């Protein structure tokens, strides 16, 4: 599909939605209104859960905070619903920020359990606070007014609801296609990957979390003024899981899936209410939740991908144009060849009683390729992790480009100019080659949340795209920039990681066992690439296992054994060193 066809489809959808109140019955319009309101929460969850990998059971509580806030402002204090919107959004985002700061460092299922906890705690609060009507709720909430027009009937508020949904979708897709959106999409790759790109993972998570809460607050505001009455019921834990279900049914990770999921779940629920009494008289209320939970469980068992990704497979692929030349991104000032770039001085790292790295010192000079080698368990990977900030040394200093980085977190080390690759390739398989490499430009660009959502910084984006394409061409992967990274063979995935690292304009490239698992031809290609990078005056540090690969490539070698440095020197000297032979071969018999 071309861009024009996508726009045409979107236009058709907008026309259909706009015509609905003139064609459908008032009941259907009310149903559509609720679908729109639920969609907002589900879109937020698609961002949070689908894109960011943070499963939240507590979104209903955010909806409730905003709904009660606006009801308090408008029904109990007689102020304008618009003031209620402002108060609701500020309060919800404030609560979300506090909760996010406290809980978003939790890992895996601990984080999701905390969403159960605060979801329940906030949910219980609604029914138990004196000023909020307890379990009777708050009635006679005024309708929203646009100037002199009060949006009383369901077909009047319809346009407001779906206008907001449409705007949220457009802005959301813009955001996902921007610098911050790419960082959000990288979150599922794990903290180490995200931080290695110079991205502060916690801040991106917090931003995603607050955006999802913001969308929930819009939903809560609309809900309060549509139903004109609120009670604790619609914001309890059951509703929290229903929102999760909507976003998962639609296709977690797809914003449009949020709308589709909200529509399917709402319509399904409606028809369950219609038809269950025919099957079981008198017990329909109970059966409804049973049928519903059973359907959800079946869905989770058999169709976890969701509907939108399933349908999208059968649609023609979007045709995209190759990025056009654009002004280059700013470059950092590179050190002069031969200058001291990295100094490791007496590094020591312990794990309990085990000393993995013991008093290791070495230098890296600008423009050379240095290899750190050693047999299994020599401490190579630990040394590597200390250099990149994934681990801290217990003793010793690491100085990079004249600046101590011993205590710096990963993201700051990455920003300082050390770019890395991973022994077990960490790419985003569902993102294109171009987007994966664009992740590398994160630290060199500065487009923020609003600029991204409103497409205000297209010049920088064009530069980043062009830079990514140039790096792809530099490593020889420039022919198919829109291929998905997951479709590449392992050898090319490693090379793609190098392109991503290069896009950060590093002063030092550190490669973690780049030849592991590669076939001979792939190794030769990789060595060729690294040589060409050295010719461009890039400094490279390789931690490697493969002797043959290292010997023919590097300028100097540091040999580790049992955590200590055994020796250091050019490949020819290392090859004839008896201590090295003994370490590798167990002594000369």
């Amino acid at each position, binding site marked *: 599909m071309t861009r024009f066809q996508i726009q045409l489809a979107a236009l058709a959808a907008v026309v259909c939605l706009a015509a609905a109140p003139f064609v459908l019955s008032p009941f259907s319009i009310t149903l559509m209104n609720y679908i729109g309101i639920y969609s907002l929460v589900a879109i937020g969850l698609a961002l949070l859960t689908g894109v960011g990998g943070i499963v939240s059971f507590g979104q209903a509580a955010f909806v409730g905070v905003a709904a009660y806030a606006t009801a308090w402002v408008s029904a109990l204090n007689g102020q304008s619903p618009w003031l209620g919107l402002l108060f609701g959004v500020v309060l919800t985002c404030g609560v979300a920020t506090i909760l996010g700061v406290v809980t978003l460092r939790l*890992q895996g299922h601990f*984080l999701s*359990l*905390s969403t*159960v906890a605060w979801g329940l*705690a906030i949910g219980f609060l609604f029914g138990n606070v004196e000023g909020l009507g307890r379990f009777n709720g708050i009635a006679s909430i005024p309708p929203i007014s646009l100037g002199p027009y009060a949006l009383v009937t369901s077909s009047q508020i319809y346009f407001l609801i779906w206008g907001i949904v449409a705007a949220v979708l457009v802005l959301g897709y813009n955001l996902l296609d921007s610098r911050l959106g790419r960082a959000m999409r990288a979150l599922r790759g794990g903290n180490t990957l995200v931080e290695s790109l110079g991205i502060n993972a916690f801040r991106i998570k917090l931003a995603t979390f607050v955006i999802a809460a913001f969308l929930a607050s819009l939903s809560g505001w609309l809900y309060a003024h549509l139903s004109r009455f609120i009670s604790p019921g619609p914001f309890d834990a059951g509703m929290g*899981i229903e929102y999760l279900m909507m976003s998962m049914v639609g296709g977690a990770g797809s914003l449009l899936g949020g709308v589709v999921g909200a529509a399917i779940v709402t319509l399904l629920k409606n028809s369950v209410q219609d038809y269950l009494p025919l099957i079981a008289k008198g017990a329909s209320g*109970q059966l409804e939740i049973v049928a*519903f939970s059973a359907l959800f469980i079946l869905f989770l*068992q058999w169709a976890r991908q969701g509907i939108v990704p399933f349908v999208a497979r059968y649609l023609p692929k979007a045709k995209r144009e190759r990025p056009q030349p654009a002004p280059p991104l700013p470059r950092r000032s590179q050190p002069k060849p031969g200058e001291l770039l990295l100094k490791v001085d007496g590094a020591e790292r312990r794990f309990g009683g085990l000393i993995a790295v013991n008093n290791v010192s070495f230098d890296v000079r600008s423009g050379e390729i240095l290899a750190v080698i050693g047999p299994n368990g020599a401490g190579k990977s630990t040394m590597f992790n200390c250099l990149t900030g994934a681990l801290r040394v217990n003793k010793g200093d690491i100085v990079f480009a004249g600046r101590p980085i011993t205590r710096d977190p990963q993201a700051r080390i990455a920003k300082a100019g050390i770019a890395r690759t991973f022994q077990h390739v960490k790419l985003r398989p569902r993102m294109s080659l171009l987007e994966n490499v664009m992740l590398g430009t994160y630290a060199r660009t500065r487009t923020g949340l609003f600029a991204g959502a409103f497409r205000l910084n297209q010049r920088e984006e064009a530069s980043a795209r062009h830079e990514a394409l140039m790096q792809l061409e530099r490593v020889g992967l420039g022919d198919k920039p829109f291929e998905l990274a997951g479709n590449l063979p392992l050898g090319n995935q490693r090379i793609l990681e190098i392109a991503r690292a290069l896009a950060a304009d590093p002063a030092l490239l550190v490669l973690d066992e780049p030849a592991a698992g590669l076939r001979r031809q792939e190794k030769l290609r990789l060595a060729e690439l690294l040589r060409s990078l050295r010719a461009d005056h890039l400094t490279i540090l390789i931690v490697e296992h493969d002797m043959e690969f290292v010997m023919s490539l590097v300028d100097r070698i540091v040999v580790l054994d049992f955590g200590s440095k055994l020796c250091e020197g050019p490949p020819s000297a290392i090859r004839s060193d008896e201590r090295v032979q003994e370490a590798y071969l167990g002594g000369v018999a």
Partner: protein
Amino acid sequence: MTSDIAAILGIDGIATGAVYALVAIGTVLIFTVTRVIFIPFGDIAAFTALTLAALDAKRFPGTGALVVILACLATLIEILSLLRAGEFRLLPRALAFYLVLPLAVVGAAWLTMRLDPPLAVRLVLALMLIMPISPLLDRIVFRPIADGTVLLLLTVSVALHFALVGLGLLFFGPEGVRTEPLTSLSTEFAGVLISGQTMLIVIAALVFSGLLYLFFDYTLVGKSLRATAVNRTGSRLMGIRPARAGTIAYLLGSLMAGVSGILIAPVNTVFYDSGFLIGLKAFVGAIVGGMTSYPGAVIGAVGVGILESFASFESSALKDVIVFSLLIPILIWRSLASLHSEEEIEE
């Protein structure tokens, strides 16, 4: 607050906490063996109380019908999966285990009911009727996704809880029940009256956690369960079937939950949906033990009970808010304490 009130609240809290502790032990057991965070154990506890109340009232409890339906479903699923795998010779055993055994239990309970049995027998009947439910649910719901992520299993578990609440209303009706106390004895300790029921609760909690400890340390089955908890693949290589270990864990867990349901029924009025809060509070306790430690879970659960008791004295409306708000600092502490490698999220 005087020291007298504090003592009464404390004892009350310990009794409630002991009930949570039994459920918490079951939760930890299931989590370590199957990685499922089984929220519905609270429902199992509530269902046991409702079952016992029905038996006391000389009505055959809805649990029977529930077990029959679940047994049929589980048998159907098991047979289909066996047929698809071509394992025809396993069919008789599957039928015996998933269909005949649960039906026999229900039938035996129904027959015994006719004889108007004494309380002790009714207790056993209630436990017998409740125990097949979780293993059957395991077969129907969790076995097809046994290798999924913890998060997927948790999501399914929460959904399952809601299904059970609906089923509870369907099979037990909306009325709350309160069974007669198991003992009317009471004793005075340091000037505070302690009811026999409270003593019973604490003793039962101690006895059952003790028995579980012996089971895990001194029997081969217990050891195989522990092995499965540590490493599923590894224990499979040693000839332990994780599915079978899961079934045993569910049976044991249901027993604990059932006992806690029987113990709480004379103290609190139990409704079809009371299980959620029991389950969640037990679960808070289990998290204190990092979801892996039994003593930790017991301490945590008793702590939750005491906290709840004092919180409800201060503000009965906000006691649940307080308990669940407290979960967040506990989670942070646990997350910091457990140094785990980075979890890859399912793509």
